[in-house]
């Protein structure tokens, strides 16, 4: 097995998709000549040419909307939104236009486009460049939403998203780009949209998470004296109720772990769904591990505490399992 950078999985997925399908094009700021701000598109311009790998002006609304029009007319655009926050100047094209195109045309027009966006905290980019913001993309039933978690799922989700007939947003935890991993690429491999994965089996509690938090969850589980089943949700919408409900049926306990505050996170929907469907079957209250209600701080000391870490997650789950009571979040005392 070769050790690769996870950013290479993005590059490889885009390269393979473009090689397999001549209608796939890339658009974004500095994705062509410069090979991408995060170097995930390096070499694609030389290999696939300037008509398919396109540098754009700083005009998210224009190129997001252009992707919609291009998709409707037969191309498969992959748009890079450098930091997910930048969708705040272009959201309309994605959630209001792309997501309703199929519906309004009664199935005659589709928008098979992919929005790739780096997201998440942990690197000191500050409060305007570190959020997940997946909640902006929920509530638009014509739109699908996925989050990558390692080299394999990065490759697999991107390939599936590009082949999907609908608009799909793929959030790529920025912090993973520069991580290394043993991985052998399989061009035929796909991570199916809508399916969650059991990242690590366990008996005492189901820990549902996604993105960069999957590593945190796995590490917490590995070092825990309770048996934690880690589920990587992978697709946030439509999410895999079956896998989650079956796991909770086995473990009897549910914990969600996400990079979002409670009021915006997907954890609310997951916990609510389980509370509705598995009523009376839980041994302990469902529990959400979230971010505190504060913007993301720049200071490394603060950001390290702000984000859930393996030790904290381990304590929280262990406390839930041992007491069958929900533990208080760390800030209940700190604040």
């Amino acid at each position, binding site marked *: 097995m070769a050790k690769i950078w996870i950013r290479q999985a993005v590059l490889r997925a885009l390269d393979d998709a473009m090689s397999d399908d001549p209608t796939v094009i890339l658009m974004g700021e500095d994705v062509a000549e410069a090979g991408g701000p995060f170097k995930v598109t390096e070499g694609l311009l030389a290999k696939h040419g300037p*008509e398919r790998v396109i540098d754009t002006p700083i005009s998210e609304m224009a190129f997001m*909307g252009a992707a919609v029009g291009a998709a409707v007319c037969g191309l498969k655009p992959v748009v890079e939104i450098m930091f997910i926050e930048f969708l705040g100047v272009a959201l*309309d094209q994605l959630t209001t236009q792309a997501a309703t195109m199929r519906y309004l*045309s009664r199935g005659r027009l589709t928008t098979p486009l992919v929005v790739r966006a780096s997201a998440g905290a942990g690197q000191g980019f500050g409060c305007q460049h570190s959020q997940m913001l997946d909640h902006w993309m929920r509530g638009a039933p014509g739109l699908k939403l996925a989050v990558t978690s390692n080299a394999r799922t990065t490759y697999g989700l991107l390939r599936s998203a590009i082949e999907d007939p609908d608009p799909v947003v793929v959030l790529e935890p920025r912090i993973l780009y520069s991580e290394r991993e043993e991985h052998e690429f399989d061009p035929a491999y796909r991570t199916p949209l809508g399916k969650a994965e059991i990242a690590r089996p366990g008996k005492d509690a189901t820990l549902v998470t996604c993105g960069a938090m999957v590593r945190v969850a796995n590490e917490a589980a590995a070092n825990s004296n309770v048996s934690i089943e880690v589920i990587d949700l992978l697709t946030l919408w439509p999410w895999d109720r079956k896998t989650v409900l079956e796991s909770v049926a086995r473990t009897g306990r549910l914990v969600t772990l996400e990079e979002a505050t409670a009021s915006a996170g997907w954890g609310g929907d997951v916990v609510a769904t389980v509370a509705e469907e598995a009523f009376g079957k839980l041994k302990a209250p469902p529990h959400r591990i979230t971010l505190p209600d504060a913007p993301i701080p720049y200071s490394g000391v603060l950001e390290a505490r702000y984000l859930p870490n393996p030790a904290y997650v381990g304590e929280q789950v262990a406390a839930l399992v041992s007491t069958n009571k929900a533990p208080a979040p760390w800030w209940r005392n700190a604040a």
Partner: protein
Amino acid sequence: MTISNSNSPLARREALKNRLDQLQRMVEIRAVENRIQKLFAEGHVRGSTHLANGQEAVAVGIARSIGPDDIVTCTYRGHGHALALGVTPAGVIGEICGRTIGCAGGVGGSMHLVEPSVGLLPTAAIIGAGLPIACGAAMAARARKNGRVAVAIFGDGTANIGAFHEALNFAAIQKLPVIFVCENNLYGEYSRINLTTPVEDIAVRASSYNIPGIIADGQDVDKVADAMAGPVARARRGEGPSLVEMKTYRYSGHSRSDPATYRPAGELDAWLKRDPIAVFADKLIAEKSLAPDGLEKMQAETNEAIERVVAEVLESPPPALSDLFAHVNGQSPGGDRRYSFWRN
């Protein structure tokens, strides 16, 4: 002109090669808009609706100057454009009445008319949304090297939204085959252009993108078509986008609920004197292709035809509950009805 009563959008579009049919289409648009007003009063129309009577020459002039497989994005003020491009009166009126006979099966409504077979993407209800989308359609045409163009139709007030600026800049730097057509009817909702826009001519903004900016008399269908010809040819040659401004006027208010009392006295009357239907009818009479009483006849016939359509529409059922869940995404019921531009 009976062709205009065809149920084929494509045939209706082809009919515009005939100048009499162009006049008839303008008459039809006027008749449909007036009838929709009435349907509103009769309680058959929900939400809002935005009439374009007075702007018929712009719609027909654009439609006649591009082909049915060129792509058009338009706005909520799209009844006239939809009819001009070929959508049938039943498709338009049916949609506005929320019936299955409507061009969006009754789930879209007045602001969301659509007909892929004549290049019309779903009209957008968000200001500016259509301009970037037209850029993308143009990118797809360029990728296919098929010489097709995209046309984005929008209003004067839309020239103040960010998407306008970004789309024109993007199209210019990418040399995209797209024509941006601004229908300057002097008002954005209830605000006269001088209250929201520090320049009188939207076309001057073309200089910010180093592209041609053209101004045309929007009340003369021939002048509209002439103004389109250069930009369309330029786009087909791969030389990039243009901004074309059509000076026009909407006779009614912004939407059903608007009496348009904000208009200076005499403004409407002055524009009525250059009514696009009368202007074109006079030409055809001078050209001897229309009898002196030809217009009245045409209007009478058209009104009757529209009444028949209205009857047909009101007999058409509303969508079934299952239509609510159809075509939401690729996993939804409704079947694969995907339309491929430039493939059939």
